[in-house]
């Protein structure tokens, strides 16, 4: 089902660019003007030929965005919102050449040992035929079980009823300034619907479509796991992402219905000039389990706090978050657990590493609503600081409205131990090898939770970060 877009010479990787899309772009590559206003929002809606309700949703969201002040907490966001392109056709981006890819990213690909063709594909320069085949067969298998796995734009066209029912219900536009921004200008992202009782054993991943999805600055992901269903979704991949734009602001909504289970894993490595401001939230209903595994490398500033709202008795939320803050980077990350019902439980494990003057902040919220009796929650956050220039801070918020709950909070900060380094070095490891080994050990709890190939790549990425060759 691949569409050969002959006028740009770029082949669609998996056919998300459907005939309609193709028709609208046939006049040439489209790039909206810089800036944010109703005209741009209407233009995006026009190009995508969206239903009226979505157009209205976008325009209302823009008003909400304009009316909301910038957050007063977190990192320092010095962005000129009128100096950003809010919509670029994917075809335009695919039309980039290999020469446009930043040198350090190329070097990373090389060090990761990724073959030439695949490098170009991962960098968004080229669509890769092999991936298309793999993706196609995967789709077929899933489709037979009634699973929907597509990009969100396509989902809006092909499954409007599902979108209308769930879109923006977990994270409404007025939730926060950046959720409003995304709601106004969103494009791309993943849509997944798993029917009741369907268990998908292998992880679903966007790896094969990275040039399409990860290039989106404002992707929107919606996952609905119906009753008793089970899924592991892996977003993006550990290969570095780069962008010429300065703002990435995604929204990810997950709904875990009764007795279902969802794990969402992501490891992101952004270019150093990116503001990465993402809202991720899941609703877990009776006896459902939601797990976030969230790793952040790169970017200038990341503000991201995956959340689980425990809506009904027996729901469980687990968040494992890890951040690596290097030079000129601030990783303001953490997690939120909101207990809205009795007998719910949750766990947050957060780890941050700061190096070369980087700053890692843990910002977390545990909230037990009135009536949420007998809830249990534990928070563990550990920070590892590699040198005296680097910094870490912790902002744990705990709000409890019921007396009979068990909440634990543990925090630890350690400098990379001189004693640990000496111990390893006394056995013949160089200082660099020893530090890398200590850091890899520190993030081992996260690595253990990842599918093999991601774990391996994460380890290699950390090694590159430790070398300081990928800035």
């Amino acid at each position: 089902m691949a569409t050969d877009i002959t006028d740009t010479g770029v082949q669609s990787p998996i056919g998300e660019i459907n005939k309609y899309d193709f028709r609208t772009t046939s006049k040439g590559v489209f790039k909206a003007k810089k800036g944010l206003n109703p005209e741009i929002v209407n233009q995006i809606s026009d190009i995508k030929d969206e239903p009226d309700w979505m157009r209205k949703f976008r325009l209302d969201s823009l008003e909400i965005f304009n009316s909301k002040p910038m957050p007063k907490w977190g990192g320092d966001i010095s962005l000129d919102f009128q100096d950003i392109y809010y919509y670029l056709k994917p075809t335009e981006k695919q039309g980039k050449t290999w020469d446009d890819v930043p040198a350090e990213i190329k070097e990373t690909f090389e060090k990761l040992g990724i073959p030439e063709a695949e490098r170009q594909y991962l960098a968004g320069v080229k669509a890769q035929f092999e991936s298309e085949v793999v993706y196609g067969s995967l789709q077929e298998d899933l489709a037979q079980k009634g699973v929907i796995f597509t990009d969100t734009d396509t989902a809006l066209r092909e499954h409007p009823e599902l979108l209308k029912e769930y879109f923006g219900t977990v994270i409404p536009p007025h939730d926060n300034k950046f959720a409003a921004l995304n709601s106004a200008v969103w494009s791309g992202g993943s849509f997944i619907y798993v029917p009741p009782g369907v268990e998908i054993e292998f992880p679903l991943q966007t790896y094969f479509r990275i040039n399409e999805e990860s290039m989106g600055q404002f992707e929107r992901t919606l996952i609905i796991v119906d009753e008793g269903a089970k899924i592991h979704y892996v977003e993006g991949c550990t290969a570095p992402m780069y962008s010429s734009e300065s703002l990435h602001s995604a929204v990810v909504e997950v709904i875990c219905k009764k007795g279902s289970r969802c794990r969402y894993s992501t490891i992101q490595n952004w270019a150093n000039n990116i503001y990465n401001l993402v809202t991720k939230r899941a609703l877990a209903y009776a006896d459902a389990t939601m797990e976030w595994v969230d790793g952040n490398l790169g970017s200038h500033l990341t503000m991201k706090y995956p959340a689980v709202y425990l809506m009904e008795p027996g729901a469980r939320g687990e968040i494992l978050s890890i951040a690596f803050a290097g030079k000129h980077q601030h990783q303001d990350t953490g997690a939120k657990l909101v207990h809205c019902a009795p007998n719910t439980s949750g766990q947050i494990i957060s780890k941050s590493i700061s190096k070369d003057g980087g700053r890692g902040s843990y910002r977390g919220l545990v909230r037990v609503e009135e009536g949420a009796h007998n809830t249990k929650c534990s928070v563990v956050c550990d920070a590892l600081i590699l040198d005296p220039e680097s910094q870490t801070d912790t902002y744990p918020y705990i709000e409890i409205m019921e007396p009979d709950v068990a909440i634990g909070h543990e925090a630890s900060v350690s400098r990379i131990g001189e004693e640990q380094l000496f111990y390893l070095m006394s056995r013949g490891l160089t200082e660099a090898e020893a530090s890398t080994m200590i850091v890899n050990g520190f993030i081992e709890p996260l690595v253990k939770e990842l599918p093999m190939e991601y774990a391996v790549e994460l380890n290699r990425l950390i090694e590159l970060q430790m070398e300081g060759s990928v800035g």
Partner: protein
Amino acid sequence: MTDVLKIENLHVSVEDKPILNGVNLELKRGETHALMGPNGSGKSTLGFAVMGHPKYEVTEGRILLNDVDVTEMEADERARLGLFMAFQRPIAIPGVRLADFLRHATTNVRNPERKEGEDLIPMREFRKEIKEKMNQLQMDTEFARRYVNDGFSGGEMKRAEILQLAMLQPKFAILDETDSGLDADAVRLASQSIAQIGGEEMGLLIITHHDKLLEHNPPSHAHVMLGGRIVESGGVELAHELHSNGYERIRKAYPEAAAMERAMQDEEQTV
């Protein structure tokens, strides 16, 4: 030529506080030396300084390995030249498996010229070897899958140190109270293992309060340290004497060193 480790007039300070005040020692490969002395006399400091711990500053003197001056070298360079120290209190490295760490270490020590990123010893080869060594030391091979010293009992830590000694096969090994915190059976097992591994291949500097460890590793030389200096050296009989009679004779015979010892202890108390 026999390998020689030579310590010449070594003065060492920790955080500007002098601990060693001119230590001389010569250890040949194949020899076993016992280093004894009361707590706080500077025995462990000597070990750390020889191994190159950055906190232990050499203010005077030098350390030579076969006439190569290693005094300013990093610990890893010394390890690759054939030095080893079994720690009294090994450090835990959570998340790092003993086998992974040892594969790295073994590769570097055997191939000192190895550049970062070059291949490690082939997994199959390494596994076979570590398995053999663990059998020899009567260790469960599952042990190698655990995180380095993380949650290890005292005995397990010491056995892990001995396993590393067996894998790395250094020219010279300093054993810093490898017997402390072990029950009698464990000490016997440890000392037998060291004898088995070390044999006549290594130069051993055994720091110990007791002579259990020395039963299976009879020292050719014994040294007494007091107040940051080696005040007396002798043969195995000196080790036995100190073990039976303690350090009173030594303190009386070397009043200056004993005064230094008291001064250092007083200072410790006021800190």
